């Protein structure tokens, strides 16, 4: 039986620390220190990579941590591009569309969690890629590097992914609760993603049934 992991764990602390980069980011933009602002965004992105590694290292992966990480991504990168828009550094129309699509996506995620009846994060491989792309959007704005090109291509791709994920979150069946890393490692069949769907479901059901 896997031990219950507290939400006050090192991985979530790293995730929360990303918010500390936001006040100096605003200071840097306000003062015209765009290169410093770029470095702060870079630091925020590195912390984003780091929290997953910390979660695996300390075996403290939780459903809350996954959702918290997604919220931190949205708030940090969203906040950065909204600040850049306020200072006229990036196209406001593209950013407005990005924010609207982000809100629609968040609404469907809420709906998905309600359908699942538990704290869960809809795992979209496409959205993961776009979030990584979004991490760069702030940097394009602060560096003044291909701003219009990157913002508009991002908006187009975000539209496609939000429509794709909305259909899946609203209509497709919700899979059973995810297997924890510890149980996953113990399974002789190997990592969950390499197993056939029926085997994954069977392991997940066993994990859910465990006291």
């Amino acid at each position, binding site marked *: 039986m896997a031990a219950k992991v507290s939400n006050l764990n090192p991985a979530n602390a790293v995730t929360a620390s990303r918010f500390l980069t936001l006040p100096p980011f605003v200071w840097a933009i306000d*003062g015209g*220190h765009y*290169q*410093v602002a*770029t*470095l702060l965004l870079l630091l925020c992105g590195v912390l984003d990579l780091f929290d997953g590694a910390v979660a695996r290292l300390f075996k403290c992966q939780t459903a809350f941590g996954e959702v918290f990480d997604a919220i931190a991504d949205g708030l940090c990168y969203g906040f950065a591009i909204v600040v850049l828009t306020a200072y006229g550094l990036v196209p406001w129309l593209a950013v407005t569309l990005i924010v609207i699509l982000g809100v629609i996506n968040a609404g469907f995620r809420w709906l998905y969690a309600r359908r699942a009846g538990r704290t869960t994060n809809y*795992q*979209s*491989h*496409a*959205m*993961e*890629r*776009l979030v990584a*792309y979004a991490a*760069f959007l702030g*940097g*394009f704005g602060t*560096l003044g*590097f*291909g701003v219009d*090109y*990157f913002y508009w*291509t991002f908006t187009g*791709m975000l539209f*496609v*992914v939000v429509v*794709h994920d909305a259909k*899946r979150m609203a209509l*497709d*069946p919700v*899979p059973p609760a995810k297997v924890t890393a510890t149980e996953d490692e113990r399974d002789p069949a190997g990592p969950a*993603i390499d197993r*056939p*769907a029926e085997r*994954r479901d069977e392991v997940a059901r066993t994990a859910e049934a465990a006291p």
Partner: protein
Amino acid sequence: MNLVSHDGQMLFGLLMTGGVAAYWVAIDSVRLRRAVGAFRRERGDLAVRDRVFGSALGVVIGVVGVAGACIHYF
């Protein structure tokens, strides 16, 4: 407060964007191949379908990134 010159700033943009985007093209091409292989075995598995879509988008993002970095630097 400038840490590097404007040229250095643009070079940083090129290397960060182009480098990461090229890496994405490579890594997501491999993932896409694996995902398509898994999709052929299990057509009904939604998770596998999602991996195919995600990896294909990753390749597109990578190509957009490399192209954008080159267009705006050179």
